[in-house]
């Protein structure tokens, strides 16, 4: 490079160069803000998920205590009839008490005895009853039975109780801790996967409470929502995209749908309350009412997604079918709809995923009761997973905080599965032709 050429390389005044440096610095700062924003958002997400998982993972494990239960025939079946009704009425809690007293023979004072009984869950007696009803040969034998431990024991074992603070502040006495340690030393304490959590319904006792009822309730509710919203939504979308003339009436329908998509979900709850419960007198707190209310809420989403999918079908396809002499309806059903179906399904799944997580409308129609039994039909009272989470979040016992987080984990797993299905469908059927 000649001297002249190098001299001609950008001559800037000192001031201009300083300005340029400042501008580049501003550029760097700007980029940093953007990156920081993304990182903040992701950090919040991680914080949220981490706090839930940390709090809830221990709920998937249950502590069980091994007791040598003597199935005393005198207690269980005094009449010797073997009738199921009589056996059901027997006092199985006594069997538990006897076993505990035998193990801890030194416990005599009434208050201590009560505390000792508090080591085992109240559900133990129900478990024993179920065992005997299933297998009556147990009567008269002595077996080692693993029964669920109470919430207090679980608190200790899961580390929710700080052993170092004074007994008066702790909430659990030294003696109880000694018992638990003693049982553990004898190998009479074990931790198992908590199937009860997934299979049973709600309960007042944290160690017995499960999301089974809520899961079935959610499933039934979602079933009703799907069966109502999907056909209605697809038919509406098909009509609006393929057949509707452009006039004031169809414009009104379009405006309505867009507005409905923006209405807060709680208002749909009010509608459900006023129409389904009040006017049509449907059973309160049943999946059919919840499902219908959520269907109204999900309908605009499905319609909008279906319209997009149907609109994305190239016009050449329709022309080809019409030119062969297919009627517009035949064209729509034989050609347009099958091609648009992956997009429609994806939109429907995403809409259903959103409905699965909805709480507010269902609170309005009363699905917030304490339901113990697992629902069997769409008119049985039931609750849904997010409402169960809401109910438990209000409970002060420490055990319920853990359960709530675990229920959230279950809910999130379902949502991940549904969204994953939607993404898979979208990828698999994308432009197969």
């Amino acid at each position, binding site marked *: 490079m000649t001297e002249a050429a190098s001299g001609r390389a950008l001559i800037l005044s000192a001031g201009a160069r300083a300005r340029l440096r400042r501008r580049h610095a501003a550029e760097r700062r700007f980029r940093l803000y953007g990156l920081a924003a993304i990182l903040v958002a992701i950090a919040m997400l991680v914080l949220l998920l981490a706090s839930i998982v940390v709090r809830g993972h221990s709920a998937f494990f249950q502590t069980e205590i091994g007791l040598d239960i003597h199935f005393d025939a005198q207690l269980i079946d005094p009449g010797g009839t073997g009738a199921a009704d009589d056996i059901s009425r027997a006092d199985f809690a006594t069997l538990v008490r006897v076993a505990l007293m035998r193990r801890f023979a030194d416990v005599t004072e009434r208050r201590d005895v009560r505390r000792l009984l508090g080591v085992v869950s109240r559900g133990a007696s129900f478990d024993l009853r179920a065992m005997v009803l299933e297998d009556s040969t147990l009567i008269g034998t002595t077996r080692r039975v693993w029964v669920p431990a109470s919430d207090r024991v679980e608190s200790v074992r899961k580390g929710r109780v700080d052993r170092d603070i004074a007994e008066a502040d702790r909430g659990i006495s030294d003696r109880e801790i000694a018992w638990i340690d003693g049982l553990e030393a004898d190998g009479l304490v074990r931790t198992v996967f908590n199937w009860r959590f997934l299979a049973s319904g709600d309960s007042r006792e944290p160690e017995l409470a499960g999301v089974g009822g809520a899961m079935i309730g959610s499933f039934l509710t979602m079933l009703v929502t799907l069966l109502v919203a999907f056909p209605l939504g697809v038919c509406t979308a098909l009509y609006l995209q393929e057949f509707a003339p452009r006039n004031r009436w169809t414009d009104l329908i379009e405006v309505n749908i867009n507005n409905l998509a923006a209405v807060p979900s709680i*208002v749909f709850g*009010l509608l459900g309350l006023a129409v389904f419960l009040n006017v049509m007198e449907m059973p309160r707190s049943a999946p059919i009412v919840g499902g219908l209310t959520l269907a109204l809420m999900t309908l605009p989403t499905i319609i909008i997604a279906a319209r997009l999918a149907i609109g994305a079908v190239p016009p050449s396809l329709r022309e080809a079918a019409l030119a062969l002499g297919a009627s517009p309806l035949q064209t729509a059903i034989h050609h347009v709809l099958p091609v648009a179906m992956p997009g429609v399904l994806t939109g429907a799944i995403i809409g259903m995923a959103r409905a699965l997580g909805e709480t507010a409308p269902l609170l309005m129609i009363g699905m917030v009761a304490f339901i113990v039994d697992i629902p069997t039909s769409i008119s049985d009272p039931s609750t849904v997973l997010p409402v169960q989470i809401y109910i438990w979040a209000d409970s002060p016992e420490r055990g319920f*905080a853990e359960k709530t987080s675990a229920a959230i984990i279950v809910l999130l797993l379902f949502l991940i599965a549904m969204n994953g299905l939607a993404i898979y469908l979208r990828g698999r059927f994308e432009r197969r032709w």
Partner: protein
Amino acid sequence: MNIALIAAVVLVLTGLGYVLGRRGAHSSVSGEVRVLHSLPSYHGLYLALWVGLPGLALLIVWPIVAGELIPAMVATTLPVELRAQAPYLVDILLSDIRNLAHGGIVGREVDAVIQRAADYHASLERLSRIWLAVAVVAIGAASFLWRRHRIAPELRARNAVERAARVLLVACSTIAVFITLGIVLSLIFEAVRFFGLVPLGDFLFGLTWSPQTAIRTDQVGSSGAFGAVPLVAGTLLITTIAMLIAAPVGLTSAIYMSEYASPSLRRIAKPLMEVLAGIPTVVYGFFAALTIAPFLRDTGSIVGLNVASESALAAGLVMGIMIIPFVSSLSDDVMNAVPQSLRDGALALGATRSETIIQVVIPAALPGIVGAVLLAVSRAIGETMIVVMAAGLAANLTANPFAAVTTMTVQMVTLLVGDQEFDSAKTLAAFALGLLLLTITLGLNILALKIVQRYREKYD
């Protein structure tokens, strides 16, 4: 003989109509299908519709009519003194009789008169169902016999069936309108009843919210105040805090992702943002109540501030996090719509990328961004679960973010979750609040739409 069985009968008749129609079409042309105007399946559908639709109509209409007629008939058999009671007492009596007839428990003493009425009710219902079954079969058969002679080669069955299908599609589409009507009407209806008890001015401008009502129906007056201003103020406070977080973070993250981010970062970050959007609000509420609120309270006490455990800040913070992806994706769409030629023009003049974005792209996209922000505000205002779980219950007219406030949505839930009679001012207040909420959110949405539409022309 119950409704499900009769419905099954209708289904069977319809299926029969289809099969016979199709076979009839085949036989009318001795198998030469191409001579028919429409395919045999359309002939089948034609007959099926003629047989099934009247049955379906009966299935829907009959029980409704019977539901009105039967109690009236039962009422005529009741002794005079029972019939002469106030209308609503008669209604309660009749509904008790109905429950008894269905084998349920009633909260009154069942004497011989009532038992007899219940038995009569049950027998009337049985009779009605038998007649319904007969009617359904009769009308199906009659329809079939009448229409089957139309099955001929010239019958334009496809056209008839397609006409019916079109009607179905149109009907489906109008449901959307009916839902809106339903929402608006039910809200207005109940709200009007509320405003009969509490004047509109008190509601809109009252500064105290303390919804107590009379417990006994004959108690004179209610001691409650139903002024909605503190609720609206609380909603606005929490929304403002949320937007102070969501708007800057959402916008800048959208800018970075669309202008600067490498494809690999975008591949990771975008789905993560979508995850943030997909988390149910009850989870956010739990997070707010159990993690954020205690953290704020403890930090506040360390610093010397009095932060309530149900502070507006906790709820607003978490709500802001929830709205970030909303703002981000809407802004992203809006900024992508700005044509590349505008950016190229600025860059060619020697502007840095940040200058291009701040001075050219964002002003071009501004209407869209404003619209996105308004939509986010509307979403925040209508949000329920986060505030129910993290914000307070006591109405508090304040601008202090560390204090506990309540919102419209929280009150709507509190008023209705519980065993209230449907008519008390408390429950009706929830509908009035719902109407207010709906008006505000729809108003914001329409405003957002207008802004986007009106100012978009300038940059196209």
